[in-house]
């Protein structure tokens, strides 16, 4: 049984999605989806434990040996990403039960869970597979279901947001296919490890740099790296709360993982960073993303869109860590993958609580909520502080390692920028805090009826808030795993 865990990780949610579409009423579909997400979470934990203890797992789909068959290959890097994705899924789905009932038409709710499980399947599949074409297939499974999830938002803007995301996402995915095709044309293999071996033997061909360029641009589109980020703010702002919390915490993280996989395992660090000078491309883009997106976030009226812009800045931090290309830099990037997933999911879930009771997430809607919804706003504040990078939260751990990595290179101005943009994060989080705690609530009847969100929403939100604080106080596990993942990617022996 345990020998088949790698394939079960993907097959269980895939099969369950089909079953879920047939389940009525909505509550049954929800309970089923929750059960599936917890199973997936347990499998991810088991896989990470097995990898940490026994090293890389290789699983041959259908018994066909790699490189001819499809291989699922799990090392520390993707075991960690699997854990991030399945944790967020396992926390967001219980939360979705009540949240979705307010935001989605009743007859569409089972379909929402179907799309959710398909999205989970796709993201887990991208992460677990060791075959580049398989990556594309799972990428499209996750993308198509994400477009559907976004389009289910209650405002009509959700439809245009989903359409624009579909167009840009498909262009990105097609770029990735072109890159994979070019790689196949020079190596004749689709297996990542095999590709890595054969590409390292190749010298001076024009095809490989072109493939590299197509893949970088395609994945950057999925990653929403500045300036390819235009689809993201509206998609996050209009999607149903539970969907936003899940997508914001996982989709871009998995894209970052794809970037890492292609740069380090397939092309190799030497080719990516020395021949192609990747650092010089990513670094300026990351810095511009961090600064400009934090600035834009400060001026948003819609708090959900504000957090979407903040996500773009946070993606900048992750890319900054990767662009440094050292073990510390990568550790910081991978660490922030986990930390940002936890803080952003918590923030978006707190917003979902506000939508549940107040029905709006414009900044004026927060007036007086500090009194009326104390637990929700407290969760928002703690997760917000984590976003800023205050000590005792996970945000601090990420910023600490990022600044260490930057200073290792002697890049003082970059370190200063990281600190300065953290203050900008404080500004935009403070705007919400000010509205919630220092503005009197409106006196009309509608506002008077606003109460604390139900426990079914609060408990999942607070679980993530506690995770934010726990791994902020004791980061040994996350730092250890992120460090080992970085060493594995760079091929540094322990």
């Amino acid at each position, binding site marked *: 049984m345990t020998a088949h865990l790698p394939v079960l990780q993907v097959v269980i949610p895939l099969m369950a999605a089909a079953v879920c579409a047939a389940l009525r009423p909505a509550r049954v579909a929800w309970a089923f989806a929750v059960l599936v997400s917890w199973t997936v979470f347990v499998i991810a934990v088991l896989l990470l434990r097995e990898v940490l203890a026994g090293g890389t797992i290789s699983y041959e789909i259908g018994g066909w040996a790699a490189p001819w068959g499809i291989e699922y290959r799990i090392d520390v890097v993707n075991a960690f990403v699997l854990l991030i994705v399945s944790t967020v899924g396992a926390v967001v789905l219980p939360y979705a039960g009540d949240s979705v009932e307010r935001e989605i038409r009743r007859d569409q709710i089972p379909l929402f869970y179907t799309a959710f499980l398909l999205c989970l399947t796709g993201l887990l599949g991208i992460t677990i597979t060791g075959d580049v074409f398989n990556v594309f297939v799972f990428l499209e499974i996750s993308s198509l279901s994400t477009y559907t999830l976004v389009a289910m938002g209650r405002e009509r803007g959700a439809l245009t947001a989903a359409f624009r995301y*579909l*167009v840009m996402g498909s262009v990105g995915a*097609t770029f990735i296919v*072109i890159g994979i*095709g070019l790689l*196949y044309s020079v190596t004749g293999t689709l297996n990542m490890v095999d590709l890595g071996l054969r590409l390292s033997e190749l010298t001076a061909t024009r095809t490989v740099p072109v493939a590299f360029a197509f893949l970088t641009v395609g994945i950057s589109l999925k990653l929403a790296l500045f300036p390819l980020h235009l689809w993201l703010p509206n998609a996050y702002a209009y999607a149903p709360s539970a969907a936003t919390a899940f997508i914001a915490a996982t989709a871009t993280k998995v894209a970052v993982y794809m970037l890492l996989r292609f740069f380090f395992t397939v092309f190799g660090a030497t080719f990516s960073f020395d021949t192609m000078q990747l650092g010089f491309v990513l670094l300026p883009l990351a810095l511009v993303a961090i600064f400009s997106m934090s600035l834009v976030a400060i001026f948003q009226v819609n708090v959900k869109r504000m957090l979407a812009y903040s996500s773009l800045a946070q993606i900048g931090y992750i890319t900054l860590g990767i662009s440094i290309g050292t073990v510390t830099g990568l550790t910081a990037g991978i660490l922030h993958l986990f930390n940002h997933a936890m803080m952003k999911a918590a923030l978006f879930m707190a917003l979902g609580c506000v939508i549940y009771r107040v029905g709006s997430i414009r900044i004026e809607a927060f007036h007086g909520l500090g009194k009326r919804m104390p637990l929700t706003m407290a969760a928002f504040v703690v997760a917000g502080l984590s976003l800023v990078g205050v000590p005792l939260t996970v945000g601090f751990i990420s910023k600490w390692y990022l600044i260490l990595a930057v200073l290792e290179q002697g890049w003082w101005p970059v370190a200063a920028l990281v600190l300065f943009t953290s203050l900008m994060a404080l500004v935009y989080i403070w705007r919400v805090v000010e509205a919630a705690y220092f503005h009197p609530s409106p006196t009309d009847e509608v506002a008077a009826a606003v109460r604390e969100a139900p426990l079914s929403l609060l408990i999942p939100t607070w679980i993530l808030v506690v995770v934010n604080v726990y791994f902020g106080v004791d980061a040994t596990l996350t730092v250890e795993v992120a460090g080992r993942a970085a060493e594995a990617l760079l091929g540094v022996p322990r």
Partner: protein
Amino acid sequence: MEFLVGHYNYWVVVFLMMLGFYVVISRTHMVKVLVGLSVFQTSVFIFYISLGKIRGGTAPILIDGPAVYSNPLTSVLILTAIVVSIATTALGLALVVRINEAYGTVDEEEIDAIERADEAAVLEAR
């Protein structure tokens, strides 16, 4: 000349790719954008299939004696990609139908104008 004629498929691929991509970027009518996207994706299909084809190669079946055969893998991969492309186009068109119901237009510029008017109305109401 040999270079031009010998790579006939690839010139078609490059032309379709640029054409499709240009349509995606330049058009504001949503259905036209989807048409462009389909052309763009189709060019990649032809690219993959061209990679696997060998002139004079047979189908990859077991026959007596050595034989030159075309690589079947690229065609198989593209079967998958075609399914994906159909799903994308279908989902895109479904969204266009819903957008038309919600806005009464499928032109991105007109929708932008409606959204701006909506936003202005919200600010006015405050």
